[in-house]
């Protein structure tokens, strides 16, 4: 059984992004070995990162370097990965379902003939073929989708798998994979790239808990931020809240913003317009707090509170703080 190559998304300082642990956990269940591709885009894997990967059961880490080209350009990274897949004979590439990785996957589909599944929430091997689970139509339908190609590229949504270390740790070997990007791949010039500063909170796209504010906050996100900090949660927002400038656009949850699937979603002052639902309806448990009993979000909420968020949310925060001691 051939190996699964995991794209090791990482921060600018060389730490693994949280969902990578989930990818590796899932990769182990597919049979065959698990190897990792590390794009050397400035950051190197630290000793601690390599130890984490070893604990997760990654036997090989390939340092992918592009001769003089920028690996932040999707076309360049895709060429590096295509060459690596060919060189190692891995039949599956697993990566986090981000917009950047979707660009890489599209390039790979054209260059290698790979079958691509995006936004998968499960993956298994059935009679040798890879079958992915995914929800569609804003989380209202579930599907199972088989890959009918020799090479599969599967992009997994965060929080789809509970990350766990391997039974026995290994020491990953680090191998160089240097390549020269084609003239075609280097036509896109990355003129500027500004990493978003860390907020001290988890990433919105991969957080286990997300606290979201909408129009009903009337611009004051303070009670939501306090709740998020007690829960170790990320803070998100609706399109209205970001358009009003109450919070940055990067906090927008929706089909055109960040798509989330946390274990717990808490929406306060969120009406639940269809665009927003498209970005959060796949969440595990949905809690809604809204003073309007007719808000559509109550139709999809597991637990709904009809009430004023400015009293309910601080009370919730205080009670959780008390219960946590």
């Amino acid at each position, binding site marked *: 059984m051939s190996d699964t190559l995991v794209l090791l998304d990482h921060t600018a300082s060389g730490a693994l992004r949280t969902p990578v642990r989930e990818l590796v956990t899932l990769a182990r269940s597919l049979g065959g070995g698990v190897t990792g591709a590390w794009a050397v885009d400035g950051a190197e894997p630290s000793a601690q990162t390599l130890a984490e990967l070893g604990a997760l059961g990654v036997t090989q880490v390939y340092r992918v370097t592009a001769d003089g080209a920028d690996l932040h350009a999707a076309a360049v990274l895709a060429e590096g990965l295509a060459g690596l897949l060919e060189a190692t004979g891995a039949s599956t590439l697993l990566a986090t379902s981000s917009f950047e990785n979707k660009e890489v996957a599209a390039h790979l589909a054209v260059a290698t003939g790979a079958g691509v599944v995006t936004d998968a929430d499960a993956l298994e091997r059935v009679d040798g073929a890879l079958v992915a689970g995914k929800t569609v139509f804003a989380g209202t339908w579930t599907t199972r989708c088989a890959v009918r190609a020799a090479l599969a590229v599967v992009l997994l949504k965060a929080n789809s798998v509970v990350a766990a270390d391997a039974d026995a740790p290994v020491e990953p070997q680090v191998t160089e994979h240097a390549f020269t990007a084609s003239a075609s791949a280097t036509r896109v010039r990355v003129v500027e790239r*500004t990493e978003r500063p860390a907020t001290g909170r988890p990433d919105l796209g991969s957080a286990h808990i997300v606290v979201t504010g909408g129009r009903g906050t009337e611009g004051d996100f303070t009670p939501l931020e306090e709740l998020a900090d007690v829960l170790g949660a990320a803070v998100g927002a609706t399109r209205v809240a970001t358009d009003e400038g109450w919070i940055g656009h990067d906090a927008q949850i929706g089909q055109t913003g960040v798509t989330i699937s946390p274990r717990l979603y808490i929406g306060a002052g969120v009406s639940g317009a269809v665009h927003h639902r498209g970005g959060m309806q796949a969440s595990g448990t949905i809690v809604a707090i809204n003073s309007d009993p007719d808000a559509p979000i109550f139709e999809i909420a597991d637990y709904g509170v009809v009430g004023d968020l400015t009293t309910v949310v601080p009370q919730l925060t205080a009670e959780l703080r008390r219960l946590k001691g």
Partner: protein
Amino acid sequence: MKIVVCVKYVPDIQSDRRLVDGRTARDGGDGTLNELDENALEAALSVVEAAGEGSVVVVTVGPDDAVDAVRKGLQMGADEAVHVLDDAIAGSDALGTARVLAAAVRHVGGADLVVTGMAGLDGLTSLVPTALASLLDVPALPLAASLEVTGSTVRVTRNLDHASEVLEADLPALVSVTDQANEPRYPNFKGIMAAKKKPVTTLTLADLGLDATLVGDAGSRTEVLEAAPRPAREDRVLVNDTGDAGVKLAAYLVENQLV
């Protein structure tokens, strides 16, 4: 400056969307131009207006009704429209769709710039724009929150999960735009009347010289095995706040081990 805008006809997201035999049902009579493609059309029309010259061709691939999507493009101000209509295309995955679009762009004589929306609000894979660029062998600049064409260079800004970027490439190129890029114009009466006189060319795979085995189910590298509506959520709770809703909610979260 010749710009081709690729648009999609999709079920209205407010409608009861469903899958039949693993394919998106497109027979509900509630289809519409993919909302995000209005941003693509607006971006293309703005580029032509800023340059003071050029033309916009709007292209779609889809069943009979899909002609409505390009008609809307003509009403907004596009100059001509192409509708690729062929039963063999049904069931195409993202790559199959990109192949048809690439052939259509070539058929109309190519483009200095291809513009698309960031995603189709039905499948939402976001794969088609980049795959299309790759097939056309032009640089892809996806997810533009703004774009500017200066001479023969296109420059976009984009906001990703962890970073913001400025990308640049020489034309010809492909740009996909987000809903941050602009406010799409509404077709006015003049535009609607003018659209009636503009040509819509209907093309088949044979017209495009595209082998039917490369598209549709035959050309797909993925296959939907099962599809079902997600079961309704069970054990739902709805309470009115009578002064202790925050305390009750905290107890619910702790009891269900959610925090």
